[in-house]
């Protein structure tokens, strides 16, 4: 895409995304976080690890975005999607997109040339509820556009 950013502005010229299913493992989560080597801007995690407080682990340089419904008590439903945003992406350049699911985390990035929506989806192979939620979300978004 064309870049309209002034040359003197320090900028991120490309967004680098690491996508990973960690199978709820703390060991895999630690290995992931320690192996990123400051080379990634977003980490899309599926089946993340949570501690007894329902929080995941991440170093201070990452902002953890939980699904909109993460804090809601829903029997049998666990959060299976997260997005980590690196601190080099300024907090006034991204917003969370609300979706009523524990399996979808979505954010919108704002750049000088437009917007980029990122959806991190865990799609359970035993049902299609997440796809139905996404369909409703997209239909609503298209109506509002």
């Amino acid at each position, binding site marked *: *895409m064309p*870049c309209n*950013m002034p040359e003197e*502005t*320090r*900028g*991120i*010229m*490309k*967004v*680098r*995304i*690491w*996508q*990973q*299913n*960690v*199978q709820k*493992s703390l*060991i*895999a989560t630690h*290995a*992931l976080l320690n*192996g990123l080597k400051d080379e990634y801007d977003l980490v899309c995690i*599926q089946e993340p690890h949570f501690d007894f407080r329902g929080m995941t682990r991440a170093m*201070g*340089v990452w902002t953890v975005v939980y699904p909109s419904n993460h804090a809601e008590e829903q029997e049998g439903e666990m959060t299976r999607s997260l997005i980590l945003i690196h*601190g*080099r*992406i*300024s*907090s006034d*350049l991204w917003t969370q997109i609300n979706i009523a699911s524990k399996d979808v985390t979505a954010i919108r*990035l*704002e*750049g*000088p*040339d437009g917007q*980029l929506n990122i959806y991190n989806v865990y*799609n359970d*192979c035993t049902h*299609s509820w997440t*796809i*139905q939620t*996404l*369909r409703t979300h*997209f239909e609503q978004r298209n109506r509002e556009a």
Partner: protein
Amino acid sequence: MWDDDSNVGLFTRANLDAAEELIELVANQGMEMVLPKGIPTIKNVQGNHTRPDNVFCSGEIVDWVMQCTTLPGETLPKADHFPIHTTVDFSMKQSERSPGFNYRAIEWGDFLVELIKNLDKIPQPQ
């Protein structure tokens, strides 16, 4: 669909019917698969390579995707899914916040000289 054609066992009528809803959503939203077909994303317990993970992108911005591939050599301990690396050509202003300390990069010789100098300023216990 995006799995390797050699995984014929996956392409059963029941599986294809179950995938219909996803395919319809993707088609209606004009999304395209950017992770090349046939690239596996998991090695399951039987040792088979299959493709449960995918990366879709709106057709209008598919040209923004510079790279999308798996990194099987960097599979994490306790994980059987391969990492997927995607690079998108999208520019943003970088945060002005100052970087944190990198303690691993300490020059220990200089650090100890400064430490001793500053410790000397602390009075002895009385």
